[in-house]
């Protein structure tokens, strides 16, 4: 048995502040939230006294909730597919730039991520809105008589969130590609594989860790992007996160808590799915 030495005490004192903060203000409140989700609503307290599963049953029996969950998953699937389709080629080009130029381009990708999402969503409103860049330009050219309605649809949400989150997947894939040992590709080509075969059988599988972490980030951020979804999708195009917000501000706390855990469950299932398909663990040295 190891005794309490001054060195051990010292190192426990070191980890105590971050550990207590993480337990008290992260893990603890989440457990409390789960506890609240298992109780009935109350008009005077945060939640009622009686234990119930009704909040979860409501999510699975109400066709409205079902529609919203389906729409959320469909929107997220479009965003994931398009972000990979556009992000991969861009990352591929960036990874092959000389280091100094690559850093400059990476900075250009990192900068938008530092800007608040409300500003970037407002930018899309300013471009796609009734008085936006596209409508005024087309109107001035005499191509349209009345402004086109380009906002307030799931398509608009896909465009907005796709462009807001695209840098994450590009950076993630570009980093993996840039740190890849090019001798694998050279070996494949010296064994007679053409550029396409080399890409499909060597480069693509080796970049799986970057693709997986990029997709995960894009998906998780899509799920909780309430402000972007509200500004671009408008008051009627709701996704799961909008329902959570509406329930919170409507003081339906236990119901909102149950919806929050439905969202977390979706996040877990899709995360597991992405990891199962991409299998980033296969690639050696992926645990950076």
């Amino acid at each position, binding site marked *: 048995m190891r005794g309490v030495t001054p060195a051990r005490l010292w190192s426990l004192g070191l980890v105590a502040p971050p550990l207590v903060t993480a337990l008290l203000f*992260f893990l603890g409140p*989440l457990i409390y939230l789960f506890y609240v989700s298992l109780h009935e609503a109350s008009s005077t307290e945060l939640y009622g006294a009686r234990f119930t599963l009704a909040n979860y049953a409501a999510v699975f029996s109400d066709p409205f909730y079902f529609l919203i969950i389906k729409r959320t998953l469909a929107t997220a699937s479009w965003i994931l597919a398009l972000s990979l389709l556009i992000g991969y080629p861009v990352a591929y*080009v960036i990874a092959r730039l000389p280091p100094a130029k690559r850093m400059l381009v990476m900075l250009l990708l990192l900068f938008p991520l530092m*800007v*608040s999402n*409300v500003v970037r969503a407002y930018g899309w409103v*300013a471009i796609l809105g009734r008085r936006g860049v596209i409508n005024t330009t087309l109107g001035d050219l005499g191509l349209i008589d009345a402004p086109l309605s380009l906002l307030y649809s799931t398509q608009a949400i896909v465009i907005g969130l796709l462009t807001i989150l695209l840098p994450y997947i590009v950076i993630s894939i570009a980093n993996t590609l840039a740190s890849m040992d090019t001798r694998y590709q050279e070996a494949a080509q010296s064994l007679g594989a053409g550029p396409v075969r080399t890409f499909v059988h060597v480069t693509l599988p080796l970049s799986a860790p970057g693709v997986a972490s990029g997709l995960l980030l894009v998906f998780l951020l899509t799920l909780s992007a309430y402000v972007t979804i509200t500004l671009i999708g408008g008051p009627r195009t709701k996704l799961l996160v909008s329902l959570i917000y509406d329930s919170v501000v409507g003081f339906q706390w236990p119901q909102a808590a149950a919806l929050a855990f439905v969202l977390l469950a979706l996040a877990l299932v899709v995360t597991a799915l992405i990891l199962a398909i991409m299998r980033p663990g296969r690639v050696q040295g992926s645990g950076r």
Partner: protein
Amino acid sequence: MSSRWSLPARIVRGIVVAFAFLVILAPIVVVIVAAFSPTDFFKFPPPSFSLRWFYEFFRLDNMRSAFLFSIQLALGAATFGALLGTLAAVFVAKRRGIVNGLLQALFMAPLVFPTIILGFALLLFYKSVDMPLTPGLLIAHAVIGMPYCFRTVLASLQSLDPAIEEAGQSLGAGPLRTLALVTMPLIWPAVLTGWLFAFVVSFGELNTALFLTGPGATTLPIEIFSYLQFQGSQLVIAAASTLQVGLIILIVFGVQQVVGLRRIVSR
């Protein structure tokens, strides 16, 4: 390898890359350009240059105080978060095993956790213990900022030669002196880089602030959001957005002068 690309392939590649950067950067550029417009409503490109909407921004009490509140909040939360993240990294860096793995996962978790749910959970928790929202928001942002510093400092510690710290201790320095006189001077650029990311994240954060702000204590992003929702898109919002972007450029530039651009890009 690029020499293998045929001309049509190179053209397609160029179009895809140009398109990607256009859709990523255009919304920010449009907002910044519009902020300097003298017109009442959105007109792009603006007919002439004017600072009218910036005057308007600082004339509006709500906007001005939200801007100042956001700066104070980000300074406090980033400093608090950087302190916690550094302590956590110093503890985790030299250990292995399951408990340590769990600790690492716990300290990194707020980075990928849906923040809107964290905000809601904290709202309920603060209500149940009667905690005021403003210090609560500061802690929430510190929790979200902590992983950035944890990650950069941990990477920096792992690349240190352990012999340097051992030398300090074999010369008679205790753990505290070794940390302050040997380790800190070597890892402070990582601490500052982590602090920068924590600041930037807090300054633009929307999801926890959505629930943890109230009248009189609202952050700039939330003020912009509610203005857009309830007052329409007047150009004072473009000015507010430009100030949001401007302050970030300023702080990144400042930190970059000290630690170098490479460290920020390849955090």
